[in-house]
């Protein structure tokens, strides 16, 4: 077990946000992050290969992944274009999918930190994995370390993977034999699991997941995941407001009102 001692890092360590991140997180967490990076790098390679195989220039997958840096949106752009969709439709679909980053930004803004450079860079490495990794951490110092280490290492591995895939060609178009398509959901699930142990959050997440699954066959990609936010209504009444700000906020909430 790592020791989250009272030695919380003084509020803003002056140096680079990555300095000390390895020490803060401990070797096991860093190893886990590296494993995730390798898996994502392989998926990135398949993205590069698929994009080129669809007839787009070799530099395009790399441009997309450096500028957008969000896997689902990237696959969507290429998928829509390759299927003969219009550029406007491709962009609109990807923008819709990426709208989930708005609440992400609020949820991890403390981990991004302050200062212009840190803000500019930290904003760009805010992705599903780095957000989930930060949310799984118990202390602010660990949140910051996890967010930055995961985000920046993934930026490197993902883009190197995409570039190699674009050049390496068809050997990599299919990662399904490796089961990597099962690894991505499993990774995210493992990371949100600590949050799901709180009852109010879990109820919202389960209702939201149901909404997303039910609507996926019917709606354009990206929309079902956003509709999952409707699950927030199932959290029940919070300890907010003037009411009894009583006991642990993650209790069962008063019986169902619906």
């Amino acid at each position, binding site marked *: 077990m790592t020791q989250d001692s009272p030695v919380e890092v003084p509020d803003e360590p002056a140096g680079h946000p990555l300095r000390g991140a390895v020490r803060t997180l401990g070797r096991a967490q860093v190893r886990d992050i590296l494993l995730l990076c390798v898996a994502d790098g392989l998926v990135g390679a398949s993205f590069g290969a698929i994009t080129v195989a669809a007839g787009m220039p070799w530099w395009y997958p790399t*441009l997309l992944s450096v500028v957008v840096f969000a896997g689902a949106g990237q696959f969507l752009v290429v998928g829509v274009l390759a299927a003969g969709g219009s550029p406007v439709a491709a962009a609109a679909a990807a923008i819709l999918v990426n709208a989930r980053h708005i609440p992400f930004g609020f949820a991890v803004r403390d981990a991004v930190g*302050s200062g212009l450079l840190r803000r500019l860079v930290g904003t760009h490495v805010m992705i599903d994995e780095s957000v989930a990794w930060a949310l799984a951490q118990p202390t602010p110092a660990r949140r910051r370390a996890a967010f930055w280490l995961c985000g920046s290492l993934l930026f490197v591995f993902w883009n190197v993977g995409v570039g190699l895939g674009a050049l390496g060609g068809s050997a990599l178009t299919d990662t399904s034999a490796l089961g990597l398509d099962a690894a*991505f959901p499993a990774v*995210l699930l493992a990371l949100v699991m600590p949050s799901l142990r709180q009852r109010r959050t879990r109820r919202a997440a389960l209702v939201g997941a149901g909404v997303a699954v039910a609507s996926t066959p019917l709606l354009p990609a990206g929309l079902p995941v956003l509709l999952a936010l409707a699950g927030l209504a199932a959290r029940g009444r*919070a300890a907010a407001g003037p009411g009894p700000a009583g006991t642990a906020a993650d209790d069962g909430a008063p019986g169902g009102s619906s």
Partner: protein
Amino acid sequence: MIAHGTLIGVAVAVGAATYAFRAAGPWLGERLRIPEAVEQLMADSAVVLLTALVVVATFFDGHAFAGPSRVIGVAVGAVLAWRRASFVLVVVAAAGTTAVLRLLGMP
């Protein structure tokens, strides 16, 4: 064949919009005092969105069912994660289960 300028335009438009989405929280958070309830709402929103991503990515390829091999692989990973298995075990078991099932011919 799509014109290169068009391709670049799509990448820049999506990249700019995504960056703006990502920047909203840190930017507003510095300028406004965000109430505790809203902070909690946003944290829960992130968990809800990530969970929805998990479920959609487990069951679907586009609009169609992804096939049982992926679902079973993720389920194995989910059980391990719930029982607090190590992250490495969760990832390797999920991918490995799916890979073996496919090797055996399951879609």
